[in-house]
Structure formats: structure tokens, C-alpha cells
């Protein structure tokens, strides 16, 4: 009895880690000269992944509660742009970061309120916001990059804080892991996490048990918005400038990462370890295929195939879990 339960749990939680390890080993073995595991390449992955990864962590939580957010691809660069403007206006970078995170959360709040008030599919609402904020960004920025190096030079405290190194570990990776741990605690060990799952699994039942499902969704949107601001600023600091192309494609890549990590599109299913590894799996495939000299445009084809394959694997694992626990 105990044993069978153990096996079921094991399977559902292990499927994404297993896929992660296998993906890693494949590229290790087949990249020319094993260049994939070259410390410089691994360091590059560790630095690049958190840009999308931090946002994807929020998207994972949001999708567990049953909603989407496509607007991240515009909210992220918009926050980066506003950050640059604050620096130009003479605001201290730490203060600007502290200001922008709540601004990002407010943009999320707007999404959440629109979705819960109108009752329209979040896909539609956040698609509109994606286009809306993109348009606003193009008008206010004129598509011109804005260098922030004069305000946050590479060796400044702020640059070290967001994009430096701790030993040989990039700060971005630590931020990503730290946020994943905090969200993981909220999701799996806290009351609010139980409400997130309940809202995604069966909102009627959740509401009948006194859970304010609208509030749960709004808070999840705010988490995503805040993380967009953080990721946008972290990326701008790494690049040394705001660029209008920041965040392009994130809206779908984040969904791909989270789904590969075992989150269901219908809500109620997923875990933080899977979400975090899902992001890395997508990034490793991206990076590994380029090392294998697959043309850049062909990479998406493989990622598409990989997403389908992993979703099938996750579904099998989840079904196994459900059967083995009864």
C-alpha cells in the first residue's frame, strides 16, 4: 500500500526531472567536441535562462489557477523602458527597481481585474493587452534602444546585485532559484497555494468552500506582472540597455516551458520543480541545437516537437499517479 503510493508520487514528480536529465545527456553526447558541457556554455545558459525563467515561474503559477497571460511579452519591455526613464530622471537604480516591481504588479492587477470582471477568456484579454502595451511602447520609445550603462556601469553595485557572480555562479541563476523556492513554498506548503490549485481544478467547488477565486486569480496576475518588471530590469542590466525587442516571443515560450514542466493547460495540475526544470529544458534544447549547427529557424521546429513529446510523457505520468494512489 505505502509502496504503491510511493511509486505513484515518485512517477509524477520525477517525469520532468527525468526528461531534463535525458535532454542534458543527449546534448552532452552529441554536441561537437562535447561543447555543450563546456563551462563557458553552461555559464551562458545559466545567465540567459533566468530572463525567460523568472517570468515563466509566474506563468506556471497562473496557469495552475487556470488562466493565461500573453501580455508578458509587452509588459516586460515596458517596465524595462520605464526603468531606463527613471534612471535618466536621476532616480537611484535600487529605488527604481523597488518602484518598478509594484508598477509591474499593477499592470498584472489590470489584467486580473479585466479577466475576472468581464468573464472573457484570459487568452483574449491578455492578447489585447499584449498588442496594446506593444503599441504604447513603440510610440513612447520610438523603437530606439536606451543605454543605461552611464547609470548602472557593469561594475556598479546594482549590476553586481542583479547580474554579478557569487563564486562561479551567476547572480541571475540565484535569483531564479530563490524566486522558484519562494513560489514553491507558497504553492505547495501555504494555504494560498491550496486555493490556487482549487481555483484551477474546480472554481465552482472552490467558491462554494468560501475561496474568493477572483481574488486568487488577480493575485496570480500580480505575481506575473511583478516578475515581468524584475526580469525586464535584470535583462536590461545584463544588456546594458533597454531594447524594444526585449520579451518578444516570451508569451509563447513561457507557455511551452511551463507545459513541458508538467502544468496542464486546463489548470489544477503542476508543481514548482517541474516548472523550473521546464524552462531549462526549453533553453537547453535551444542552445544545444545551435551547437549542433541546426539553422536558427529550424530550432523552433524541434522545440515544437519536443513540447508535444513531453506533454504526452507528463500526461502518462499523471495518469499513473492518479491510479496508483487509490
Amino acid at each position, binding site marked *: 500500500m505505502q509502496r504503491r*503510493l510511493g511509486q505513484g508520487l515518485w512517477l509524477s514528480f520525477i517525469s520532468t526531472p527525468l526528461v531534463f536529465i535525458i535532454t542534458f545527456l543527449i546534448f552532452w553526447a552529441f554536441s561537437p567536441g562535447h561543447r555543450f558541457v563546456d563551462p563557458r556554455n553552461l555559464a551562458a545558459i545559466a545567465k540567459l535562462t533566468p530572463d525567460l525563467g523568472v517570468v515563466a515561474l509566474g506563468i506556471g503559477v497562473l496557469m495552475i489557477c487556470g488562466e493565461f497571460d500573453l501580455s508578458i511579452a509587452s509588459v516586460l519591455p515596458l517596465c524595462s523602458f520605464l526603468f531606463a526613464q527613471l534612471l535618466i530622471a536621476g532616480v537611484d537604480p535600487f529605488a527604481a527597481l523597488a518602484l518598478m516591481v509594484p508598477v509591474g504588479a499593477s499592470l498584472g492587477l489590470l489584467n486580473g481585474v479585466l479577466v475576472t470582471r468581464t468573464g472573457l477568456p484570459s487568452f483574449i484579454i491578455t492578447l489585447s493587452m499584449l498588442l496594446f502595451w506593444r503599441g504604447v511602447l513603440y510610440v513612447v520609445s520610438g523603437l530606439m534602444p536606451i543605454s543605461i550603462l552611464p547609470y548602472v556601469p557593469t561594475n556598479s553595485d546594482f549590476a553586481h546585485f542583479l547580474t554579478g557572480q557569487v563564486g562561479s555562479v551567476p547572480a541571475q541563476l540565484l535569483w531564479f532559484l530563490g524566486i522558484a523556492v519562494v513560489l514553491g513554498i507558497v504553492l505547495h506548503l501555504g494555504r494560498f497555494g491550496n486555493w490556487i490549485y*482549487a481555483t484551477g*481544478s474546480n472554481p465552482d467547488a*472552490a*467558491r*462554494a*468552500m*468560501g475561496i474568493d477565486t477572483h481574488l486568487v486569480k488577480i493575485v496570480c496576475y500580480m505575481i506575473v506582472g511583478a516578475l515581468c518588471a524584475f526580469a525586464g530590469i535584470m535583462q536590461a542590466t545584463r544588456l546594458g540597455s533597454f531594447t524594444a525587442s526585449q520579451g518578444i516571443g516570451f508569451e509563447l515560450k513561457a507557455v511551452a516551458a511551463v507545459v513541458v514542466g508538467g502544468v496542464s493547460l486546463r489548470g*489544477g495540475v503542476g508543481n514548482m520543480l517541474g516548472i523550473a526544470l521546464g524552462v531549462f529544458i526549453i533553453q537547453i534544447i535551444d542552445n544545444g541545437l545551435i551547437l549542433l549547427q541546426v539553422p536558427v529557424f529550424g530550432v523552433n521546429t524541434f522545440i515544437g516537437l519536443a513540447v508535444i513529446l513531453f506533454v504526452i510523457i507528463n500526461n502518462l505520468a499523471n495518469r499513473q499517479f492518479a491510479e496508483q494512489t*487509490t
Partner: protein
Amino acid sequence: MEGSAQVPANDEEELFDTGSLPCVSERAAAEEAAPTNGQVLLKMVNIHKWFGRVHALRGVNFTVHRGEVVGLCGDNGAGKSTLIKVASGYHTADEGQIFFEGREVKLRSPKDARALGIETVYQEQALCPHLSIARNIFMGREPTTLLGLIDQRTMNKESMEALASMGLRLRSPHALVSALSGGQRQGVAIARAIHFKAKLVILDEPTIALSVKEVREVLDFVRHLRDQGVAVVFITHTLHHVFSVADRIVVLAHGCNLVDVRTKDTDVDELSDIIARGTLGDAVPTTQHAR
């Protein structure tokens, strides 16, 4: 009662003809409702509910006594679910009064009703299929440790105890609800009510889509509740299910009271007949046994 004989049998017509009228004849019937032993626990008086232009409840009276099992019957669309959703704070009545344990109460949300001891298991899936049994039982009321995190150990232990008190043996509190049978799911939903010391448990169509064996399980759960002194409102349109457990049966038709009778004073055939016709007709004299 005499008036009710003139109500047209045609559904469409009746909606239009009596749609805005109070349920005069039926109200008379309700006032003579057969009392059962024990004090009044829940009393709903002259409850009206509109959904836009649909007058779903047209002055319904409904009483439940302490520790009593009441079967709430009637055709689809009669207003059964709406009535109990008013009693459980999910809908608010547009008119009418609700008394619980003798005091008038205002139920603005399911929370208000639960605070009084009214627990409802809804017809539409009362559980979250992707969550564990324990997390479902404690949903919205999760116990926490000093650190503010969920007290998983207490949750597991107490949910297994609540299930056991209903004679339901499940393998593990971690099992996902999606893996349970329909009967077991009802058991989990009812265990939730037991654990939180409900005085009144409302079950909306708990036997719908269940196998014969599972129906028997659910009826056993109801008996367990009654043995623990908990009052039960059992909604069904399968009279056979409710007859074996109910002390009293209330029938609604088109948002009005139609019958209120002690189970031992009637039989399945007589009631089926009344429900099918939607009016009392000739059956009135035999079913109206006030005290």
C-alpha cells in the same frame, strides 16, 4: 387546495398564468406541514427568487427539524437547487425570511451559512479532482502551523478519522479525488461536513449518475449522519432513493410547495403520481395529514 385543481396541466401555460402569483394553495399545504419530533432547526418562510425574468421560487416555505432527514423532490427545474442555494448562502433570496435555531439570519455568502453549521454538497461537482482527499476536505479552512504553512499532518489524520466515522475506508489521504468512485466522492464531501461539525447537511442530487452499489453507500452515509444527530436535506428526483432514509418528504413544483408529508404516511406510487402531474388533484385528501 381546491384552487390547485384548476391550475392548467400544461407547463408553458402555467408559467405564464401563475408566474407572478404567489403559490396560494400550496402555501396552505405547507402551513399544515407534517411536523416531526424535535425542535425546528431551519425555517424558510415565503422565499422568492428571480433569475432575470425567471421566477424560480415563488414563495416557498421549508422547514427542517433537528436530526431529521428531509427528502426534497420535484421535477427538473422545480427550484430544488435554487432553494438550497438560498439556504446555503450561495444565492440570496429576493424576498422572504430565514430562521436558524429560532433566530432570523441573513445569509450573504456560503461562509455565513457554514458559520451557522449548514454544509452543502452541491450537485455540480463539490470537489476539486486534481487535489488530494485531505486537501479537499480542508479546502478554504486549512489548518496552519506556527510558521503559517499548512499543517499537513493534522489534515491527513483528521480527514482519515472523518472518513472512518462514516464507514469509508480509503487507502490514503494523499489519493487524488479524480481517482475515486462517485460514491467515494460523495463520502469525501460528506466527511468534510462531519469534520466541521455541521448541524445541517444538504446533499443536492447525491445519487445522480451513481451505480446501484454506490447509491447504497451514499444512503449509508446519510444514516451515519442521522445517527450522529445531524439533520440532512436530501435532494433527488428518484423517489426510491429517498424513501428508505427520509423521515419527511417535501415536493416542489414550478417554484411552489406541492407536498409536505411524513414518509410513513405515503408511498412511492402516490408521490410519483403527484410529481408527474405537478398538482395535487385528487391525491390531496390522502397526503394531507396534518399532525
